């Protein structure tokens, strides 16, 4: 942790993420207005009452901005957790079992890489509806495949280690080896993966919202606010620029923190970033 705090870039990243988190959690108390209420004052320019003005339905843009990261962050962090937990278990199990399970799993991972992301989400959303749990699962599975690859690779290396060999000779069960010997040793990797997956999930969710496949109105959401504000870009640029800036700073913050974390842990952050 101290190693992390000694890096100014990582510190800045943590600060950005923390700020966004605090704002998102406290939005119901600090937002001056309810994010969906129509205030009968459409398209007010920024002023003392409406700090960022109002949109064309007469909703307070500043309040919406404070609320706008909640669902996207929930989806991104939950999807990141799904991806890292599911991916690590699958990857380590494959590393432990090898053989045909491993072969089939790696084919599935390859297959996911071959299915266009948009098609994957569209199938999910059409089949199960456009709700937050569905989005978490869909985005989580997309992000999971990359984690499977990195943790499997790490697991294969660990399987060669003496203490794992010893545990195997002692007749420990597969589950014990995976949970007790392998999992703790990839915890660092998982922490970095979580940050990377969350940031890439956040970008994906805002792109999906932009395409109309993600978070749906009336939920206040940055991606939707950008899409919604585009028609008014010339007259009310703040309605687009403010949420776009929020997405970018949050993703930037997570990435800086991930980079710092992986540097501090001596891991290679960029390698996991694909997929």
């Amino acid at each position, binding site marked *: 942790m101290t190693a992390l705090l000694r890096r100014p*870039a990582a510190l800045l990243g943590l600060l950005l993420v923390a700020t966004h988190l605090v704002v998102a959690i406290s939005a119901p108390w600090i937002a001056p207005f309810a994010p969906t209420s129509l205030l009968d004052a459409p398209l007010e320019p920024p002023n003392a009452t409406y700090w960022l003005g109002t949109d064309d339905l007469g909703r307070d843009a500043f309040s919406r901005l404070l609320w706008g990261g909640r669902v996207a962050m929930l989806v991104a962090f939950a999807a990141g957790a799904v991806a890292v937990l599911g991916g690590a278990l699958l990857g380590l199990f494959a590393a432990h079992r090898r053989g045909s399970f491993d*072969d089939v799993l790696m084919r599935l991972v390859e*297959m996911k890489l*071959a299915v266009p992301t948009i098609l994957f989400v569209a199938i999910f959303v059409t089949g199960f509806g456009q709700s937050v749990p569905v989005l978490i699962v869909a985005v989580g599975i997309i992000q999971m495949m990359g984690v499977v690859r990195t943790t499997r690779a790490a697991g294969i290396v660990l399987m060669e280690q003496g203490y794992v060999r010893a545990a195997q000779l002692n007749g420990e069960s597969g589950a014990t080896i995976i949970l007790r010997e392998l999992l703790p040793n990839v915890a660092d990797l998982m922490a970095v993966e979580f940050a990377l997956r969350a940031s890439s999930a956040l970008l994906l969710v805002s792109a999906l919202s932009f395409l109309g496949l993600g978070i749906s109105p009336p939920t206040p959401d940055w*991606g939707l606010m950008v899409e919604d504000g585009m028609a008014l870009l010339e007259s009310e640029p703040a309605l687009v620029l403010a949420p776009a800036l929020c997405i*970018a700073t949050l993703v*930037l913050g997570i990435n800086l923190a991930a980079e710092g974390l992986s540097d501090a842990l001596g891991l290679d952050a960029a*390698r996991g*970033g*694909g997929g």
Partner: protein
Amino acid sequence: MISLVLRRGALSLVTLFLLASFIFFATEVLPGDALDVSLSADEIAMMPPEVLARRRAELGLDRPILERYTSFLGGLLRFDLGRTIITRAPVADIVAMPLRNSVALAGLTLLLALPVALAIAMAAAQAKGRLLDNAVSGAAIIGYSIPEFVTGLLLIAVFAVWWPLFPATITASTDDPLSVLLAAAPLAVATTIIGSIAYLGRILRVGLIEVMAADFVERLHLSGIPRWRILWLHALPAAMIPGLSAAALYAASLVSGVVVVELVFAYPGIGAELVRAVTRREVHVVQAIALAAAVCVVLFNLAADLGIVALDPRTRRS
């Protein structure tokens, strides 16, 4: 080497079979079919249910799912992608040109982004930890922290509307020569390149730094070889190996994955065609595009493997 290629080929066929089946069943279990989505609410309001049932039978949409699955697989074995449901047009005709355009966009992006990413990565690796490295790394992180649709729309606003240097939207035809099409698409290419440089630069930088810290580099250094020479002649090929795999996967994902860029600039590629086919529930077109994207992944991967064999002295010898 030949056995490696054969083994990879066989495994790839398994992947493609799994993928084809997955796509088939995933698109089949969804509610609605091509007939429903080709009708507006106004039109459905006027059509008696028996007329809809008759049309569905005419279009073969009422056949049992297993029958459709086997005829789909049979078609694939004969390299026949089938026909569209409503217009009975060969799917291959619909998919071919957009696929060419997407491969061209991905190829051009890689061609332009890779050298820049490499140069940036080398500059940063040589100056690891110093101001230049920090600036480059920071710029790269910012580069891929901005959503593509924001970059694209900003480029249009600045370079097409305020300062009309380039066309805002692509008016070239799907089957125009590639030179015409790509000449009309500088802003679309720029949007994909910005993201690509950031991504590739980051991967290559890490690879280079890792290699420069390796034992053999240290030995070369001790034997008096200058640092730039080590970087160019020894570290670069070694660092390219992981970079190449990542770049290949990335390029393959560009073929079908730039939907947002294609929509924002009206680039006639396979991603936009895919979105259209999904919303029109033209299952055969969706299947063909997903398969084409899968073949791209497989081919690019294979190419990267061969490239690694060529670059890596250890595998070349064995």
